[in-house]
């Protein structure tokens, strides 16, 4: 059994005292920051990325993965208790979770979310371990043309899943690709678009973009809102769901897990799509006579999406680990982190760094276990944190961001770049342009150009190479199919409906 021996390598790595500590620290800090309203996983990861620089690569990635799960789970906590989704994938959790909280069942909602997430996480971990080897084999058959087509598919996938206008999302992707090209061109050595600023010849810092657009811009957007938020903390109740709730929740957890696992693998997929789809499925299956009705605190509306977003979050690691292609903004950040640690993401990671690869996978399961152990007893602490007023939170967050950005290269230039992207991110927010596709484009920009160049060089300038190679053609057809499906009138109105329901 190759799978078992691989997992054994993984657990050997992940169960060292040191790595256990970093997985724990990641989950704890991730939850801590993720619980703060308005700070989603992307902003949390960007903010905490610098704290992992000093670690060795395996520990750093394990810690980052822990931060991601923690932030994701923290977002659900805020969704249930404050009706404020920490991030887009817990938007649907607000619908029924908050209603449960208002009926005094906050504890059961939180408990179901945690247990559902753990089951989903366990299943997804096994899935990743099983899929990793065959997919990596496939990846070695990929030439530059296939990689280029795969990235096109991934970007189209991201467009389809962006909230709001499709064309705007395409615009944000292309803008991201262009920003990614700033800096020295590897082929010619020309410093492109550097505006004669020496620091820009190395390109725009990834953390500066992510932290500016997701962190700073969100802070400004939150500060300007004058409303008061209501925290339901008085009666959280027992974290154990009662018998009826358990009966209702169990099948929803199973369905959410399966759905999330599949949707997470798709390019552009991940937690967000998984959660939306799972909610829709549960609502459809329950029918109009659900007791209590959906939107009025039905536990299935919490169990399904919460399991789905966790398994989706996890299986979205598959394309990142095997192909080196990020499928969403969080994976783009993970790739950024790998390159900072001098690991070239791609199919060779599994063979060249087996302990890192399998250690990370094993630590996913450990991380999920820790979330359950950590979150259920510590709920009281997170609630205290929610009571801290925003006027005290954001200056502290800002402070940590500034230290983090500075310490990447020990230069204040990165801090100024973050300010620029903060202002730009605020403009995007006001113009209702989703920033997630921009980050994806930013990471893929240089990769896409490089593969395009190589493919065209190999084909002697013949662009038909992308459609004559069967794998590449298949990927491009899939991208085309996605675009066609999403522009079909029936699907289009459904898509808008789904996003509107959440908004």
């Amino acid at each position, binding site marked *: 059994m190759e799978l078992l021996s691989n997992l054994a390598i993984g657990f050997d790595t992940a169960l060292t005292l040191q790595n256990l500590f970093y997985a724990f620290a990641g989950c704890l800090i991730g939850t801590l920051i993720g619980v703060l309203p308005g700070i989603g996983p992307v902003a949390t990861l960007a903010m905490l990325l610098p704290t992992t620089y000093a670690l060795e690569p395996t520990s750093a990635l394990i810690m980052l993965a822990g931060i991601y799960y923690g932030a994701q789970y923290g977002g659900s906590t805020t969704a249930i208790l404050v009706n404020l989704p920490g991030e887009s994938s817990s938007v649907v959790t607000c619908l029924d979770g908050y209603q449960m909280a208002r009926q005094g069942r906050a504890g059961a909602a939180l408990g179901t979310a945690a247990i559902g997430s753990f089951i989903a996480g366990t299943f997804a971990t096994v899935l990743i371990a099983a899929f990793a080897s065959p997919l990596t084999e496939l990846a070695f058959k990929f030439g530059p043309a296939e990689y280029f087509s795969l990235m096109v598919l991934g970007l189209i996938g991201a467009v389809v899943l962006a909230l709001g*206008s499709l064309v705007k999302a395409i615009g944000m992707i*292309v803008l991201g690709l262009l920003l990614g090209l700033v800096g020295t061109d590897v082929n010619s050595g020309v410093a492109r678009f550097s505006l004669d600023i020496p620091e820009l010849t190395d390109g725009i810092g990834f953390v500066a973009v992510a932290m500016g657009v997701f962190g700073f811009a969100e802070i400004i957007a939150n500060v300007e809102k004058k409303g008061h938020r209501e925290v339901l903390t008085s009666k959280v109740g027992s974290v154990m769901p009662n018998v009826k709730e358990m009966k209702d929740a169990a099948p929803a957890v199973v369905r959410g897990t399966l759905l999330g696992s599949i949707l997470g693998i798709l390019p552009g997929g991940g937690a967000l799509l998984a959660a939306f789809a799972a909610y829709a499925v549960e609502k459809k299956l329950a029918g109009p006579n659900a007791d209590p009705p959906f939107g009025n605190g039905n536990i299935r509306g919490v169990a399904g999406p919460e399991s789905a977003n966790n398994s989706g979050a996890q299986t979205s690691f598959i394309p990142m680990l095997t192909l080196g292609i990020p499928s969403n903004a969080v994976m783009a950040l993970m790739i950024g982190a790998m390159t900072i640690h001098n690991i070239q993401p791609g199919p060779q990671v599994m063979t060249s760094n087996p302990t890192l690869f399998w250690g990370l996978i094993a630590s996913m399961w450990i991380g999920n276990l820790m979330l359950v152990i950590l979150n259920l007893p510590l709920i009281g602490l997170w609630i205290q944190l929610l009571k801290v007023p925003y006027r005290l939170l954001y200056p502290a967050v800002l402070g940590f961001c500034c230290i983090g950005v500075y*310490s990447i290269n020990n230069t204040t230039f990165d801090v100024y770049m973050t300010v620029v992207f903060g202002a730009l991110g605020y403009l995007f927010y006001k113009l209702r342009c989703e920033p997630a596709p921009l980050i994806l484009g930013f990471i893929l920009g240089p990769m896409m150009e490089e593969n395009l160049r190589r493919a065209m060089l190999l084909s002697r300038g013949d*662009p038909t190479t992308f459609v004559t190679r069967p794998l590449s053609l298949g990927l491009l057809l899939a991208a085309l199919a996605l675009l066609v499906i999403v522009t079909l009138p029936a699907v289009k109105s459904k898509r808008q409906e789904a996003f509107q329901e959440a908004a």
Partner: protein
Amino acid sequence: MKIRNESDFWSGVMFIAFGLFFAVFATRYDFGTAQRMGPAYFPTVLGGLLALVGVLVALSGLGRAGKGGKVEKFHFAELAWVLGAVVLYAVILRWAGVLVSMFALVVISSFASHEFRWNQAIILSIVMAVITYVVFIMGLKLTIPVLPAFLENQI
């Protein structure tokens, strides 16, 4: 012509501006051929594509009245307090050291809140300066100037 959907229209204008900037700026680099692409090739294509997307988005803003297309008011005061505080932090970091800069950053950025209170802002700043020292300087051993330059030299 009437702008029906403001946010679409202005997003389109923004895309056109960025697209043209990159496409025009790229003309100073070598374009190359399809087989051997120069540094200008990909940016020019993408810049053109972005401008085109921008035109489509802007036109759709003129054409249809989408729901919630109005661009909300920009809160420049909040923007200035938050980003200004960060800029100040970066400017004085090298000679004032991270403790002083952090103090200034927290106090000044606190002004952005409509619930600003002096005493809380000061206490928070001190707490943050202490956390910075304990966690980042002592704990993670980051190499950031700690004390103001004139004090550092005397020790």
